[in-house]
């Protein structure tokens, strides 16, 4: 446009050495942009606390158990992040997972091929989500009301599918394998290695893109530290999961539960969509300022419909995972989990005010909720105490969000 380009008067946040970068990050945190930091710290504190207070917590069996327990919740919460970023809500995500699981189990009982049965469950999610999305975006009814109606109606649907007081066992070994079988030790390490290599590659690829455009990169030390941390952290988890956790030597149980790679793939896929695609950018834009998004030529209605479809589809997948864990589906499955899912996302740092939230935050928040459940259960507290504490943690997280919001706005010059 013009010729008087003065070189880089304006920074990009990538400038400066290690110290400047760290100071920049601390300033960000101080100004209230904490992301998942509080949840991360909370997770560490809880883990240490339960390790000290319960002898069972750190055993190989419970460690693997924790992942199995958290998987359903985390997948559901990841789907909810999409709607929460739009400042919408999906109260029916839990019962959607229930309906999907119900259709899955009915299909299996009619000797439908397990892959087809799973597809039926997933398509159920797509259809439900599209329906909710159209009602919210085109008719213009608040999502709270629409999904509350769906929450009630789908319970009825589930009841009709399963039958009053009914319960269907899952006999299909492939579906059961999702939550009950593990990768072999070798497969586990191969999965680990591939993941770390991809992580390393994407880190260096991003730097290469920037340097090709003559843009400054952060000190490379940060990338090294990140890769080493991920490698060490991953190795610890894989090793722990590869420990023998069966008390019966005749039936050895070890290895990464199959559900973990599934959750990781969903997470990477979702994060990619949110961070690296036009669609993801538009989701954040609509969540931040729908009017600005509309004026920028973004089809707000389409984005909303797509987001509700994604959420319900993810909920359906969560339903499949849940059915696999429980081993059966009854008429009330999934009824209460949606609130835990929202709690997980909010505890992780997803804002209820829209515009902000990442899938990684849902994962961390999901672990916080799951670890409270798991740890308190091990220590013999009854579920009353458990719920009270989960509620308190949620309130704490929501206050942190609100306070950081206030502090953040006070920083504006």
């Amino acid at each position, binding site marked *: *446009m*013009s010729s*008087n*380009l*003065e*070189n*880089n*008067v*304006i*920074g*990009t*946040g*990538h400038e400066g050495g290690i110290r400047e970068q760290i100071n920049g990050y601390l300033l960000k945190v101080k*100004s209230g*942009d904490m992301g998942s930091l509080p949840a991360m710290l909370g997770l560490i504190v809880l883990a240490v606390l339960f390790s000290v207070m319960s002898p069972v917590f750190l055993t190989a069996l419970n460690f693997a158990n924790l992942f199995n327990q958290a998987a359903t919740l985390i997948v559901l919460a990841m789907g909810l992040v999409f709607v929460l970023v739009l400042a919408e809500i999906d109260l029916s995500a839990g019962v959607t997972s229930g309906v999907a699981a119900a259709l899955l189990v009915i299909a299996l009982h009619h000797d439908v091929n397990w892959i087809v049965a799973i597809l039926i469950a997933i398509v159920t999610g797509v259809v439900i989500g599209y329906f909710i999305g159209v009602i919210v975006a085109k008719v213009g009814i608040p999502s709270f009301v629409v999904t509350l109606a769906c929450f009630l109606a789908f319970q009825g649907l589930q009841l009709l599918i399963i039958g009053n007081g009914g319960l269907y066992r899952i006999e299909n070994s492939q579906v059961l394998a999702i939550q009950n079988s593990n990768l072999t030790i070798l497969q586990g390490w191969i999965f680990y290695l591939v993941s770390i290599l991809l992580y390393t590659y994407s880190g260096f690829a991003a730097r290469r*893109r*920037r340097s*090709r*455009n*003559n*843009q400054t990169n952060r000190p490379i030390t940060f990338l090294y530290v990140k890769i080493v941390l991920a490698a060490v952290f991953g190795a610890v988890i894989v090793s722990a999961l590869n420990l023998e956790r069966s008390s019966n030597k005749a039936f050895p149980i070890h290895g990464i539960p199959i559900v973990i790679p599934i959750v990781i793939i969903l997470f990477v896929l979702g994060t*990619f969509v949110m961070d*690296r*695609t*036009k669609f993801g*950018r*538009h989701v*954040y*834009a609509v*969540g*931040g*300022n729908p*009017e*600005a*998004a509309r*004026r*920028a*030529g*973004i089809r707000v209605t389409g984005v909303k419909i797509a987001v509700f479809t994604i959420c319900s589809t993810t909920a359906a997948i969560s339903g499949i995972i849940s059915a696999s864990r429980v081993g059966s589906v009854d008429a009330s499955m999934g009824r209460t989990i949606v609130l835990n899912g929202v709690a997980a996302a909010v505890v992780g740092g997803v804002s209820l005010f*829209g*515009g*902000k939230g990442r899938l990684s935050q849902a994962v961390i928040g999901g672990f916080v909720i799951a670890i409270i459940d798991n740890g308190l259960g091990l220590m013999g507290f009854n579920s009353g105490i458990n719920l009270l504490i989960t509620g308190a943690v949620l309130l704490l997280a929501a206050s942190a969000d609100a306070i950081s919001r206030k502090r*953040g*706005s006070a*920083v*504006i*010059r």
Partner: protein
Amino acid sequence: MSSSVPVIELKGVEKSFGAVDVLKGVDFAVEAGKVTALVGDNGAGKSTLIKGLAGIQPYDKGSVKFEGKEISIDSPRLVSSLGIEVVYQDLALCDNLDIVQNMFLGREEIFRGTLNESAMEKKASETLSGLSVRTVKSVRQKVERLSGGQRQTVAIARAVLRDTKVVILDEPTAALGVAQTEQVLALVKRLADQGVAVIMISHNLVDVFKVADKIYVLYLGKMVAALDAKSTNQNDIVGYITGTKSTEVAK
């Protein structure tokens, strides 16, 4: 293109809503590299005139020439394809996104199916430094952390990201403090220096006289004055705005 041909030229533009005639045969012209101020009291028809140019509410009658050619402006899309950008008073930025993301919102650059962050960041930086913007620390700052003046800067920079020929600014200094107003006015001047035709709507005559080359005054749907800023003064303009002065001085 010779500099005497206006980028946009309106002749006898009329617009009415039901029985109310809002624009009663308005002539208006803007030239490249000049700041053209459009002033007038509330209800004089400024917004209606601008909405017509923006393609939101097409005019009922009258001719619109763009770079000397007769056209009919009937959609915002056409307007933006001509290189006309409107910066509305309420800016329409997404607070939760950073400067680069806001500047490219709705027209993201894609490389192999994914966002080309690096290229967008580069172009955003170049556009901002091209406008000699120095108040912004980093193009990756979230817009919610910016001051009013900085936000206005981002909105204007967003408007000139592409090959923009005309930028319409609606009350760019209305909500700003003194220092920030100075920054934005300097930016408006630089925009014109780069050859962009700038239309500035403002109530603040002090600001208008600081940057405008030409001042148009609307009074009850009629263009009552089109003056060179150098050859007039605030008192005259106030006279035209309030209707106490009504000589046609169209030059």
